[in-house]
C-alpha cells in the first residue's frame, strides 16, 4: 500500500501511509487509538476506498470497489466485533457469504462442509465443533470460527483487528501459534494491535502508525518495548510498573455480602459475591469479558437491582437498585460505557458536569437552575482535569475518548467519594490517556478512597491493584496478592481453572 490518504469529515485518518507486508510473515500494525490502523485495514479489505494512493498485491496494482473484490483477491479480515450469525452452526457461518462454487449451490451439502471445517480446524489447532451453534460458543471459540472462515475461503492475506482483546493469556498464546503456522505456509498475516508485548511475541516485522502517518517499519527482533512505545507515542513513556503506595489500608469502606445479580438475558450474571475493599486500597477484578464484571459494578452503584445480598458502604447498607442511595453514601462510578451511561452525549459539557449535582446548591436553588454557576463549575473542572474542548457548551459527543474519560473521572472525583467503582477505565484509550487515568486512580487511593477496579486488561490490574480477585461465570474464583501474582496464574483462573 503506497501513499494511502483517507479523509473523513474533519479528520485526516490516513496521511500518505506506506505499508508493505511480505509473503509468509506476521506483520504487526501498531499504533495508538486514532492512529489510523482501522482505517488502513478497512481500505485494505475494500470497505473504504482511499482518496489517494494505491494498493499493490503481489506486484500488481489493484482497485477494490467493495469488500467482495478484496475477498476475491484473497484478503480476509477478522473484525473486533465478529460478523457471525448466532443461531447458525459453525459450518453454516463458514459457508455464509462464500459465493464461490459451494456457496452458490441451490442445495447445500452440510456434511461436506462440516468435514472440511473439521479438517481445517485440526490442521491449524482451531478446534471447534462444526455443528455447534454460534451462541453456544465462547468468545475465543467464535474468533476461531472467524479464522476458519478465512481459511475455508483460502485467504492468502488475513487481517486481524485487535484479536486478543477478548481472550485470556492462554487463548492468546494459542492464537499466536495458529497465526505463525499460517504464515509458515506462505500466507500473510496482518496483526493490528496497540499492545506492545503481543506485537513483540507474534510478529516478525512491525509498522508503527502515529497520527495517520507511517512512523517506521522495523524487524521485531530489533525492537524493544521501550523503543516501540516511543515510536507509537512520539516520546518516551514511563514503563508501566507497580508502584507501592505507602501506608496501611484503612477500615473496610465497601463490603459486598453474598451479592447475586440478574443478567440482561435472565439467569444470574453475578453469583453470591462477597468482597471487602478498604479505604485507600485498590482491589482489581480480573476476568474475561462477559463474566459478570459489568453487572457487578452496576449493582454496587445501584443502577442494577440485587437478587440477593447486600452492599454496605462504611457499614451502612445501600438501598438496592437505587443509585441515589449510593451517591449519597459517597459511591462514585466510572461506567464501562462512558458515553451513553456516564455522560449524556447530546448535552453540553456544563450539563454533564452538573449531572449529579443539579439537585442542590450551588447548581440549583429551589426548582430553578443557576446556569452561570453550572458553567463556572464546568470551566473549573475542565481546567483542573485538562479536558481538551472548545468550550463548556460543546456537546460531549464531540470529545475524544480520552477527554470523555477525563471528564467522567473529574466529575466523579469532584463529589469527594468514599468508594470508586471503575469499570474498564482505560478501554479504548491511547497510551498517554491511560497514563493519566492510572495517575488519577492512584491519587484517589492515596487520598483514602476505596477503589474497585474492574478490567479485562490484566496488565492494568497487575500495575494498579493491591489485591486481585478473579471473576469467572459470575462468581469470584480466586484471590491473589498483586505483588506475588503472575499473569499465568491469573489467566488460568480467568479461564475457569481451579485456584489454589
Amino acid at each position: 500500500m503506497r501513499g494511502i490518504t483517507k479523509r473523513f469529515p474533519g479528520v485526516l485518518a490516513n496521511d500518505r501511509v506506506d505499508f508493505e507486508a511480505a509473503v509468509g510473515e506476521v506483520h504487526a500494525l501498531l499504533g495508538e487509538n486514532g492512529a489510523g490502523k482501522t482505517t488502513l485495514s478497512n481500505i485494505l479489505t475494500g470497505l473504504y476506498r482511499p482518496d489517494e494512493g494505491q494498493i499493490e498485491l503481489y506486484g500488481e496494482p489493484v482497485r477494490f470497489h467493495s469488500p467482495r473484490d478484496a475477498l476475491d483477491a484473497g484478503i480476509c479480515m477478522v473484525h473486533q466485533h465478529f460478523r457471525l450469525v448466532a443461531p447458525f452452526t459453525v459450518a453454516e457461518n463458514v459457508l455464509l457469504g462464500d459465493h464461490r462454487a459451494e456457496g452458490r449451490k441451490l442445495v447445500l451439502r452440510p456434511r461436506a462442509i462440516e468435514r472440511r471445517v473439521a479438517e481445517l480446524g485440526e490442521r491449524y489447532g482451531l478446534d471447534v465443533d462444526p455443528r455447534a451453534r454460534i451462541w453456544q460458543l465462547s468468545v475465543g471459540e467464535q474468533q476461531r470460527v472467524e479464522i476458519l472462515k478465512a481459511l475455508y475461503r483460502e485467504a492468502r492475506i488475513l487481517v486481524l483487528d485487535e484479536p486478543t482483546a477478548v481472550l485470556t493469556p492462554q487463548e492468546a498464546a494459542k492464537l499466536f501459534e495458529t497465526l505463525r503456522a499460517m504464515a509458515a505456509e506462505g500466507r500473510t498475516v496482518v496483526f493490528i494491535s496497540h499492545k506492545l508485548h503481543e506485537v513483540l511475541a507474534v510478529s516478525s516485522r512491525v509498522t508503527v502508525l502515529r497520527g495517520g502517518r507511517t512512523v517506521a517499519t522495523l524487524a521485531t527482533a530489533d525492537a524493544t518495548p521501550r523503543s516501540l512505545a516511543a515510536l507509537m507515542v512520539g516520546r518516551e513513556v514511563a514503563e508501566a510498573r507497580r508502584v507501592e503506595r505507602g501506608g496501611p489500608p484503612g477500615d473496610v469502606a465497601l463490603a459486598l455480602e453474598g451479592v447475586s445479580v440478574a443478567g440482561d438475558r435472565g439467569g444470574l450474571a453475578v453469583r453470591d459475591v462477597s468482597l471487602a475493599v478498604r479505604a485507600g486500597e485498590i482491589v482489581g477484578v480480573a476476568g474475561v469479558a462477559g463474566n459478570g464484571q459489568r453487572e457487578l459494578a452496576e449493582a454496587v452503584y445501584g443502577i442494577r437491582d440485587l437478587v440477593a445480598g447486600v452492599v454496605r458502604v462504611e457499614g451502612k447498607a445501600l438501598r438496592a437498585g437505587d443509585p441515589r442511595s449510593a451517591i449519597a453514601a459517597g459511591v462514585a462510578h466510572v461506567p464501562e460505557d462512558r458515553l451513553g451511561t456516564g455522560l449524556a452525549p447530546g448535552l453540553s459539557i456544563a450539563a454533564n458536569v452538573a449531572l449529579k449535582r443539579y439537585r442542590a446548591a450551588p447548581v440549583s436553588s429551589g426548582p430553578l437552575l443557576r446556569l452561570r454557576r453550572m458553567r463556572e463549575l464546568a470551566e473549573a473542572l475542565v481546567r483542573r482535569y485538562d479536558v481538551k474542548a472548545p468550550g463548556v457548551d460543546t456537546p460531549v459527543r464531540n470529545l475524544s475518548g480520552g477527554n470523555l474519560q477525563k471528564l467522567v473521572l473529574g466529575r466523579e472525583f469532584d463529589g469527594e467519594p468514599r468508594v470508586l467503582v471503575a469499570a474498564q477505565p482505560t478501554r479504548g484509550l491511547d497510551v498517554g490517556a491511560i497514563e493519566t487515568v492510572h495517575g488519577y486512580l492512584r491519587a484517589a487511593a492515596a487520598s483514602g478512597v476505596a477503589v474497585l477496579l474492574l478490567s479485562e486488561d490484566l496488565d492494568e490490574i497487575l500495575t494498579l491493584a493491591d489485591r486481585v480477585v478473579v471473576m469467572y461465570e459470575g462468581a469470584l474464583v480466586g484471590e491473589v496478592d498483586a505483588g506475588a501474582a503472575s499473569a499465568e496464574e491469573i489467566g488460568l483462573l480467568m479461564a475457569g481453572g481451579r485456584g489454589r
Partner: protein
Amino acid sequence: MRLERRLDQPRLLLVAVPVGSLAAAFVLMAFVLLATGHNPLATYRRMLDSAFVADGGLTSTFVFCTPLAFTGLAAAAAFRMQLYNIGGEGQFYLGAIAAVGVTLYLGDLGVESTPLHVVAMSAAGAAAGAAWAAIPAVLRAFAKTNEIITTLMLNYAAGLVLTYLIIDSKSYWRDLESFEGQTFPLGKSIPEAASWPGADLGLLGGVLLPLGFGGALALAGLMWFVYRQTRFGFELQVIGDSQRTARFAGMRLRRKILAVLCISGAIAGLGGASFEGDFAHQIDPTGLQSSFFGYTGIVVAALARYNPLAVMPVAFLLGGLQNAGFTLQGADFPSGLVGVMQGLILFSALGGEVLVRYRLRLGRAVARAGAPSEVAP
C-alpha cells in the same frame, strides 16, 4: 452523490433549510399546477390572499392554527423525551368533552361569568386530557408497554366515546330540544357566557386573535423556560438524551415518564377545551374526527424539532396552509390537488431535514458498506 454526516450543524442552516425546502415545494407544485391547467402564480396569490391577507383570512387561519399549536406543543413535550405520544388526537377529544360538559353544567347552574367558564373549561379539559394520557403513561412506566400502540389505540376509543355521546345515546352533551337536534343528532351549544373572548388586533379590517392562541403562546414560553431554567427541565433534557445516563445520575425515571405523558395529554386536552370555547361551541363528533388536529400536531412538532418556541410559527404556517386549501377547493380546483400541495410541502420540509444533519457530496461513492459513522476518532 452521497451523504456525509455533518460534524457540527451551522445555525444558519436551521433557518435556511426550512425556507429553502418550502421554496422547493412551491416550485415542484408549480409543475403539478401547470400540468393540471392552473396558473401557479395566480394560485399561490389566491392562497396567500385567502390565508393571510383577505378580510377574515387571518381570523380563520387562527381557527386552524390554534388547535394545531396545542397539539403540536403536546407532541413536542413528549417526543422530546422519546415518549411517542401519538394520542394527542384522543386527548384532544376528551379535553373537548370535559370542557363542554363542565360549561354546560355551569350554565345550568346559572353561572354567567365568562372568566369562570373559561377557567373551568381549561381546567376540565387539561384534567381529562391528562387522565386519558395517564392510562398509557402508567402502562409504560410500570409495564414497559409500547406507548405508541397504546396511545394510538386510545384515539379510536376516544372517537367512539364522541360518537356515543352525540349519536348513539341521549347523553347530557346531546341537543334533544331544538328542532335541528330532533331531526339530526347534534351537540348541545354551550352558554353564551362560555364563548371565549378574542382580542381584536385592529389590522387588516379586524383580525380576531382567539384567547386560545394567546394561551398557547404563553404555554410555549413557559415550556421553554421550564426546559432551560429548571431542575425538572434539566432532568427532562438528560432523560431525552439518554435514559441510561439519567438512571446513572439517580433520576427517578418512572415518575418523569408519568409526569411528561400526563403533561402532554393535559396540553392536548387544553387544546380541546380551547377549540370548543373559541370556535366550535358544541361537540361535533364527525367534524372533530375529520380534522385530525392531533395527528397534524405531530407533524407540527416534528417540523419544529420539538422546540416549543418553534411550534408556534410552524403551527401558524400549517394552519394557514390548511385554511388556504379549504378556500381553494371548488369546482375548478379539486380537493385532491389541495392534498397534493400539502403533501409536497410536508414532504420537502421533512426531506430538507436531512440536509441539516448531513452534507451532500457530489462525486463517486467511496464506501458502500460501513458509512463514515465508523470513522476512527
